[in-house]
């Protein structure tokens, strides 16, 4: 889940001298770091948007390909770029076929380790509930769950923060209903 940012000045003046702690290396400073830190969350994000694990992994990799060889170096917002690009890749997969003789879809191919992923009953329950949300609400929920603020989501989706917030609020209300959580306390 998203962690709230540390508040400036929290805790008051320091009473003792602490060793200087150098900031951790930027995980996006190299491509490997970007891949390591983002591949999992990006896959989960796409699953929140409705992709199967298999489709999500394929689209996520395609998004990473789009950043090679050098694009990733110049991305101002690599996390958001990967999510918007991967989602477009997912939409392009067009996996449905109504009839066996329909035109061949551009399916993600080969085997993918994520085919081995088996969702728990609770994970399936949440996934099903998310799929019942209208798109805008599901989208807002997926971005928020991925740790983006309303302002960031609005910036990358071309919406106002108020719209994002409203979609998120409605999504929560719907989820409470769908999941039958009304009147239940936190476990």
């Amino acid at each position, binding site marked *: *889940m*998203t962690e*709230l940012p540390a508040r400036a000045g929290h805790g008051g003046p320091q009473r003792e001298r602490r060793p200087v702690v150098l900031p951790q290396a930027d995980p996006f400073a*190299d*491509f*490997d770091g970007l*891949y*390591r830190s983002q*591949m*999992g969350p990006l*896959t*989960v994000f796409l*699953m929140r948007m409705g992709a199967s*694990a298999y489709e999500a*992994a*394929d689209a996520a*990799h395609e998004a990473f*390909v789009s950043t*090679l*060889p050098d694009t*990733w170096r110049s991305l101002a917002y690599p996390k958001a770029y990967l999510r918007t690009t991967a989602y477009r890749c997912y939409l392009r997969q067009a996996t449905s*076929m109504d009839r*066996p*003789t329909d*035109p*061949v*879809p*551009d*399916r*993600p*191919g*080969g*085997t*993918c*380790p*994520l085919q*081995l*992923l088996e*969702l*728990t009953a*609770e*994970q399936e329950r*949440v996934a099903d509930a998310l799929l019942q949300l209208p798109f805008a609400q599901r989208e807002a929920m997926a971005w*928020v*769950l991925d*740790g*983006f603020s*309303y302002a960031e989501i609005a910036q990358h989706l071309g919406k106002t923060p108020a719209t994002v*917030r409203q979609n*998120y609020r409605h999504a*929560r209300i719907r*989820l*409470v209903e769908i*999941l039958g*959580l*009304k*009147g239940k*306390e*936190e*476990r």
Partner: protein
Amino acid sequence: MTDYTPHRDDRGEEALDALLARDQASLLVAVRAVLDVEGGLERLGSAKGGVARPYVTVQNTGSEVAGDRSDWQSFEVEAVLDGPALQGALGMIDDLAGEMCDAADDLREEMYAEHLDPSRPTPYDLLELTMEALLEVSDRLSARDLTELELTREFEPMQRVFKDEAEYWRQPDRDFVEPGRADVCFSRALRFSRFHAKLVTLHAQLRWLFEKAKDPSLLAP
């Protein structure tokens, strides 16, 4: 959740937060555990100029494939007869798909090696053979007066896929491996893998058509 502060009453907000937090964390753990990020990165290749390997391995269709890799060349599109022989042609496609699997697996293994076996099939070699087999099956089905199936229309997309793919791989020196270009290698591996998925789909379509051909009652609208 981030900057939305729900009313902490009995509307289920806290339960929802708890459920979503638990779900997000557990799903991420599950995905990471299965995803093999390090392995994926290794196969993706270094952005610093290494040689990429496809992150996906081409799926084996379970067909019986000749064990010796050199045998792939022995696959020839023989005259396809009616009836059971048509089934044999489909079997041939099975075999070719299996060959593609083997070739892709071998390539995956070899991509880290300096020396690549020059006798191995290129993607285009495999495509060419597969396309021949498919066209042969198409011709045979057409010859069986199965106009009700609108074979021309139905095979068009199949043939277009193969034509486009063959055109792509026919380019000189187009192979999975292009040392120093991780992006190129990875893109090609992904493309070939997707093509293989299409092959499997085509195969299913052919089988469906074949079943219809065997049982005219299935032709009824």
